[in-house]
């Protein structure tokens, strides 16, 4: 039945007599002090958003800049930006899995498989590189779907399935790489260009920043207008302008840094495309809503008619796909597929990037943009330590400690949010 009809037959309750808004709801006051109050209230409620990460990033950068004045040089920042894309892409994929409240431990190995497939097909067998790349990405999706099948259909715990995958796929990678162990990749080829190509025209970086800022403003503006027309609460135009302004500062700032070096890196452009695309998928489509629902309550989702198995398999396939894409950037960065690809601290870094960015390990909370902030932190630490000449053992220990710290923040936030009724 339509709600209007219900209203007709209930004359005592005219539609506009009772406001849907509770008078006890704290409504933000107008003006700057209103913003400040809401901000403080959110902090108390454990609704920290990206703030701890941004502060952390500023602290990290200040420390390393203090230790070595080259840290904030355009060249170093640019290298960080390009290097972080491999880990960042994998983090985007694992965020989908974390949103379900599950974990995928195989992303590192799968990324290694992807690099090896491209190298073997295009270098050893002389296959067209585009085709080899497509096959590698499709293999990643298929591997993820297999993990998803065992988890969703058979009911095995995701961590156990993907832990098996971790070993299986690294063995698989070593097997297809064969005796030689390392296959060099043509740095002028498709994969090679992923991390070496720059749009050297300054217009590219500034143009991208302008397009992003413009698109954000137009999008928010029309959304606000539509909300007003529909009579639902909308963002005041001042706030839209303010947010656009902040975005503009960061976008043009980043563009200026890129242009000081070699221009906009292709890798960064592709990463941004992936972030925008997955954010759209998660927050604007029915599929994304289902992923969040599963992260909140599997039983409620099932009863709402959501195909739990289908969504779970798809999510693991997405994680596999992004692991494969990350593997391509990795291979491109070292210009080779070798036996150590996907090993070491890569998996830890991917998980750390997702969690540091603000994706909850408990499921149901997070955005793919979290991957950007998180991977910036992780990669900055790596580069800073490398500049200082600090060896791998210490790097591992520091990354481990940082991950533990973020997990602690995640758990504490969740507790505060529970008491503040927001989780």
């Amino acid at each position, binding site marked *: *039945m339509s*709600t*209007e*009809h*219900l*209203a007709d*037959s*209930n004359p005592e*309750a005219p*539609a*506009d007599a*009772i*406001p*849907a*808004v*509770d008078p*006890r*709801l704290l409504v933000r006051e107008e003006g700057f002090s209103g913003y400040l109050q809401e901000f403080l209230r959110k902090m108390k409620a454990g609704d920290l958003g990206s703030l701890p990460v941004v502060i952390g990033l500023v602290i990290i950068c200040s420390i390393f800049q203090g230790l070595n004045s080259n840290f904030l040089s355009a060249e170093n920042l640019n290298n960080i930006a390009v290097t972080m894309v491999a880990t960042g892409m994998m983090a985007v994929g694992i965020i989908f899995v974390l949103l379900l409240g599950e974990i995928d431990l195989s992303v590192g190995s799968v990324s290694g498989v992807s690099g090896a497939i491209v190298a073997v097909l295009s270098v050893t067998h002389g296959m067209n590189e585009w085709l080899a790349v497509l096959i590698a990405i499709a293999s990643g999706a298929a591997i993820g779907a297999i993990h998803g099948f065992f988890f969703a259909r058979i009911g095995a715990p995701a961590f156990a399935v993907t832990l098996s995958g971790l070993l299986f796929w690294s063995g698989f990678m070593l097997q297809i790489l064969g005796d030689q162990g390392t296959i060099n990749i043509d740095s002028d080829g498709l994969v090679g260009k992923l991390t070496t190509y720059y749009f050297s025209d300054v217009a590219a970086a500034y143009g991208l920043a302008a397009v992003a800022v413009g698109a954000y403003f137009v999008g928010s503006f029309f*959304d606000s207008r*539509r*909300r007003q027309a*529909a*009579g*639902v*609460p909308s963002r005041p135009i001042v706030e839209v302008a303010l947010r656009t302004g902040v975005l503009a500062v960061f976008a043009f700032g980043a563009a200026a840094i890129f242009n000081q070096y070699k221009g906009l890196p292709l890798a960064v452009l592709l990463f941004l495309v992936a972030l925008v695309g997955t954010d759209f998928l998660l927050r*604007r*489509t*029915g599929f994304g*809503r289902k992923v*969040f*629902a599963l*992260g*909140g*309550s599997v*039983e*409620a*989702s*099932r*009863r*709402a*008619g*959501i195909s739990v198995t289908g969504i779970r398999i798809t999510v693991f396939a997405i994680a596999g796909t992004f692991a494969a894409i990350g593997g391509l950037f990795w291979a491109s960065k070292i210009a080779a597929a070798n036996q150590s690809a996907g090993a070491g601290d890569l998996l830890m870094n991917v998980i750390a990037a997702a969690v540091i960015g603000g994706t909850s390990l408990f*499921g*149901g*909370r997070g955005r793919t943009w979290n991957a950007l902030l998180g991977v910036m932190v992780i990669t900055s630490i790596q580069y800073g330590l490398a500049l200082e000449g600090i060896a791998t053992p210490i790097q591992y220990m520091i990354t481990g400690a940082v991950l533990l710290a973020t997990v602690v923040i995640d758990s504490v936030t969740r507790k505060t*949010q*529970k008491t*503040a*009724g*927001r*989780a």
Partner: protein
Amino acid sequence: MTAAPVLALRGVSKRFGAVQALTDVELEIHAGEVVALVGDNGAGKSTLVKTIAGVHPIDDGVIEWEGAPVSITKPHDAQNLGIATVYQDLALCDNIDVVGNLFLGRELRRRGVLDEVEMERRARELLTTLSIRIPSVRIPIASLSGGQRQTVAIARSMLGEPQLVILDEPTAALGVEQTAQVLDLVERLRERGHAVILISHNMADVKAVADRVAVLRLGRNNGVFKVAETSQEEIISAITGATDNAVTRRAARTGEARK
């Protein structure tokens, strides 16, 4: 009521491992009728609801929809028939906001993209019509009180065009006014020709809105009564399975004490 019942259960049985939760249950419900389903804790009421809603497929028996046998094996089957269910445990997603929960599984789309504005507008309209007060439709379910969650779950069942609405203890967590509103709502649904199955432990509520009362006891039918022609005591003795039971004993004791 000569037309075929909207929903009929014929000899429905459901087993959970060693527990025989439902045995040969019969139930008929017609359009424009409110049937109360009562029984003690663990009698199998919620299980019966879940078999109708497709959460637990039945082991034996037949479910008929408007006279024709249907197979309900998953929640979607029930939704497609026009069955809307408010579960005892509500089945809401804590991390998603009120609007998202109301439309979960049947989101409105505009050019393939979620139409948040329209969903929010309709959600506010629906909540206003049902006189439901919640702080905001954009806060996560986790920040609502138990009763507010219950009203959201009820509101969710009113979206769309359900022909049969099943309410599993919808007033359990509600205040006086909200309970009255839900009972009003049940009556409005009946006036509009919908069928309602209402589960409640509150005999006063049952007597107030139901046309018939079906009693379940230990997973079996234990009588169907016309509310107008039955006393509360008769229903209670059917629920407890004896004339000598805790309720009558207590009534007798308090009666003596008063003398």
